[in-house]
């Protein structure tokens, strides 16, 4: 399947069955418990202002973590935590039925940089103005539960 895999158009769904990784800074207990933290799934102001309003992830089959880490440039040493999530699991994350949120999805988000073929984003985490916060915190907590972690070496 991955032999013919390539980055799709911006906003196009990432094929099912793939694993995406998010790079994060270590939370307090990450090394001890191997558990992801909710803060790792928080949209930054920059994310919120981006076109897709997505949480940056990488399709592992195209851009493995050690390559993705290079895009952090000077801060790459800080990004040692790798959060692995299956695209299917992300799409199946429950959310409160009454909440006005679309289900989560993983879509391609091409970058105009070498070796960045695997760049994608998790969409559906952006809370519209005046929408309740709880459903989005719910999604964040459930993503943290789903993620399988690994820790990259310092260099």
């Amino acid at each position, binding site marked *: 399947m991955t032999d013919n895999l390539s980055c799709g158009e911006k906003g196009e769904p990432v094929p099912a069955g793939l694993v995406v990784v998010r790079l994060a*800074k270590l*939370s*307090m*207990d990450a090394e001890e*418990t191997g*558990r992801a*933290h*909710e*803060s*790792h799934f*928080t*949209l*930054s*102001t*920059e*994310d919120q202002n981006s076109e897709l309003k997505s949480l940056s992830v990488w399709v592992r089959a195209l851009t493995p973590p050690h390559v993705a880490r290079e895009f952090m440039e000077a801060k790459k040493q*800080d990004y040692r935590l790798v959060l692995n999530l299956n695209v299917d699991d992300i799409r199946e994350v*429950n959310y*409160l039925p009454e909440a006005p949120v679309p289900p989560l999805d993983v879509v391609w988000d091409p970058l105009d940089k070498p070796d960045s073929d695997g760049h994608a984003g998790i969409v559906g985490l952006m809370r519209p103005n005046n929408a*309740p*916060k*709880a*459903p989005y*915190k*719910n999604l964040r*907590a*459930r993503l943290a*539960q789903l993620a399988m972690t690994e820790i990259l070496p310092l260099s």
Partner: protein
Amino acid sequence: MHNSTWKHDNKDLHTALDDMAPSTRLEQMDLSRPLRRKSISVTRVAPLSGVVKVLFSTIKTNISTVPQALTVGIADPLTISNSVLDFTFGGQVRVRKLQKFLDSSTRSGQITDATRRLAWLAWTSLAKIASRKLLVPDAGIGPDGQVLFSWNRNDHHFEIEIFPSGLAEIFYLNFETDEVWEGEYRIGDSFPLEISSKLPLFLIV
């Protein structure tokens, strides 16, 4: 009783005490009689409105064995782990881990010193209303300099997110039943009343 200003820099009470030269400390506290370092032990620390009351007892001394109480004004009460000494040993280790995590996050520029103080105040306030039996949370730093404390036990999840503005968002989730609750408050103000029904889920047993 004597009043003095206690200078320190991001150290917990034990460390701060250890670092203070006994003679200097005694001079600052204006004790009438000098005591050797080995003759002093801190037997009780009680945080009270930014003032730490330190009760000294004297041992191995030929001067006096009568405990002496001192009230020491803390220049910056938030940087003192005023909850450390009330926890069990295991709890103390985690409290210190939390403090170190916040300190290192500040040094690396992920959060401001003001946010670190807010987060510490939020934690100590929560611990206080839970009678020092609240589990020490996991902690993470958000992308915009916010601190997020989280507790997970069985199906229960609880978090408090402290923003640099001083606002905090509280969230509870039961992963099994989908029950959720959320609240907001300003650090330093009273917690929402509903919190009292959630904290017992995360107490040290």
